[in-house]
């Protein structure tokens, strides 16, 4: 019965008039080819969200900040390459693991605070989730896809400048051994960047998924990240002033633990823990971001893992609960 109907629809070409305007009868075409499986649909959602994190497919205004921040992140690599080109034989201005830490904090803070809400809050605000859940993916595929997409976006923000730095340096140094040395240094830098790209999007998406209002979400991410970073640095400073600077034996407990407060200093602490300890009797080391960890290095590693897992679990739990209509 319906086969006849659709066949008839295919033959008809006359426009059908209805009260809401003219609907041209173009016939209905079925889709008979193979469909994507669940994994491929999730991959499509990841790609869509990854592009959205950089404002692609979202209008011109949405592209301004991500692109500005990305260019900002690449600037030190460019400066380094120019510097090396002008003064051959000089040392690289920027290291891989200590890649302009303050710039990275500011840029990534803004990137996460602005783009995490774009990935999850708007679907909550506009009640778009039922449209996803009514399709052949599972309840958990959605947050997992968003997390992977944002993780990849943060990875791109952090690692592409490092790769540019590597290219800029490796093309200026002479000899295979020096290139190899650069390559060896790049590895830990990329790993450290990956730690950023895991922790920050997890926290960002969890906080953003709490509210559908974009402005609230931006504040919910930006304010804690910013002030915890300030607080961690202030406390570390107080610890040094009150209990003597690091370097004379062990740093004070306050200074050593202050870095746990902020994700950024936490990441710095993990780096410091994994790096070789400064040579005994050497100059006191407490660069910005290179958090002082004292004897608590392992604690930084543990807190990093716990915080990451907790943020991801929280995000998943959030979407297990969220209503479908």
């Amino acid at each position, binding site marked *: 019965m319906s086969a006849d109907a659709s066949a008839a*629809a295919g033959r008809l070409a006359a426009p059908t008039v209805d009260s*809401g305007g003219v609907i041209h009868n173009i016939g209905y075409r079925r889709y008979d080819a193979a*469909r*994507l499986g669940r994994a491929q*649909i999730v991959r499509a959602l990841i790609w869509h969200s990854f592009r959205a994190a950089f404002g692609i497919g979202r209008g011109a205004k949405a592209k301004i900040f991500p692109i500005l921040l990305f260019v900002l992140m690449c600037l030190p690599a460019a400066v380094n390459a120019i510097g090396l080109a002008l003064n051959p034989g000089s040392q690289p201005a920027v290291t891989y693991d200590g890649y302009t830490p303050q710039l990275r904090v500011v840029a990534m803070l803004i990137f996460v605070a602005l783009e995490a809400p774009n990935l999850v809050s708007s679907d909550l605000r506009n*009640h778009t989730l039922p449209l996803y859940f009514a*399709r052949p993916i599972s309840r958990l595929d959605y947050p997992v896809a968003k997390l992977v997409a944002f993780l990849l976006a943060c990875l791109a923000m952090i690692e592409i400048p490092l790769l540019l730095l590597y290219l800029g340096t490796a093309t200026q140094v002479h000899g295979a051994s020096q290139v190899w040395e650069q390559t060896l240094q790049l590895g830990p830098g990329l790993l450290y960047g990956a730690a950023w790209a895991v922790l920050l999007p997890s926290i960002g998406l969890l906080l953003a998924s709490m509210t559908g209002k974009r402005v609230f979400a931006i504040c919910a991410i930006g304010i804690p990240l910013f002030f915890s970073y300030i607080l961690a640095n202030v406390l570390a400073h107080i610890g040094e002033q009150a209990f003597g600077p690091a370097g004379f034996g062990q740093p004070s407990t306050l200074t050593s633990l202050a870095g746990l407060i902020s994700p950024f200093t936490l990441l710095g602490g993990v780096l410091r823990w994994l790096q070789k300890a400064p040579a005994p009797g050497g100059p006191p080391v407490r660069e910005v971001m290179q958090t002082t960890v004292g004897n608590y290095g392992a604690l930084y590693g543990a807190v990093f893992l716990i915080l990451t897992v907790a943020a991801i679990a929280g995000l998943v739990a959030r979407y297990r609960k969220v209503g479908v209509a």
Partner: protein
Amino acid sequence: MITQSIRESGGHQPPEPGAVIEARGLTMRYGSTVTALDDLTVSVEPGITGLIGANGAGKSTLIKILLGLLGPTTGTASVFGHDCVTDGFVIRTLSGYMPEHDCLPPDVTATELVTHLGRMSGLPATAARERAADSLRHVGLYEERYRQIGTYSTGMKQRVKLAQALVGDPRLLLLDEPTNGLDPAGRIAMLELIARIGAEFGISILVASHLLGEIEQVCDHLVAIDAGRLLRADSIRSMTQASSVLVVEVDEGLELLQADLSRRGLNPLPYQRGLLVQLAGDATYDTVRDAVADLGLPLSRMEQRRHRIEELFRADPAEQAGQTTGAASVS
């Protein structure tokens, strides 16, 4: 694996005879106090089926169970023979869902949204673009589809919601209050669209609504639920025929006609400026014609009319008619 099972199940052949939706003893409780569905057993045939009930009768809950989004407390449900609890993926591949409430992001164009959701329905990129354009054309959106949805009227948004349900080439459409928020002209246009999709595209449709008068225009079957229980499920023909009445209006001599029709055993009731006669086949028309002719009255109107939902489920026709007239005393 999903692809496989769809092909096995007949994929995109026209709906085979047999039930599209089967529910047996379906019960859904939220917590211990709210019962959304109460031992609902119903079977839905191919074609357009109206799911009719007051707000809160359990229409949306039933649709969500059918999509595998909610697990029923007890009972079973299946769509095209696939169990709603275990085969949710397959069912969601075969179904398109139009939610009741606003669900569209304002800052993307209709084309972008429907293409993206086509991808989410499992279409490859090129097919998703083509089908998005097709679906939007089918629902009557042309150049507007390149505009951001935030600039759309309610009617256009409803069309986009329908297009996104259609984009994955479903065999079943689940439409939850598709005429919500539309003006009368928009309602008619939406209903015509639904009728066309059901008749010409060969897609079975379940339309949830609380307005029977609207839905009966396009439905082949009707499922009425109240407080989560099945009131009645039948074809629209048998439902409305059994309860049809004839409105008779004459310019003068109404009392004479009423007396004469009573004599002929029709039990007419006053209705606005005319009379209401229970319709019992073609003989009723003849009886009325004869009565009017014998009395020599100027007949101005003779029209069959149907009832509203609350009248449909009343047993007593006299009471039905009384409700229709709004007259308190029917003697």
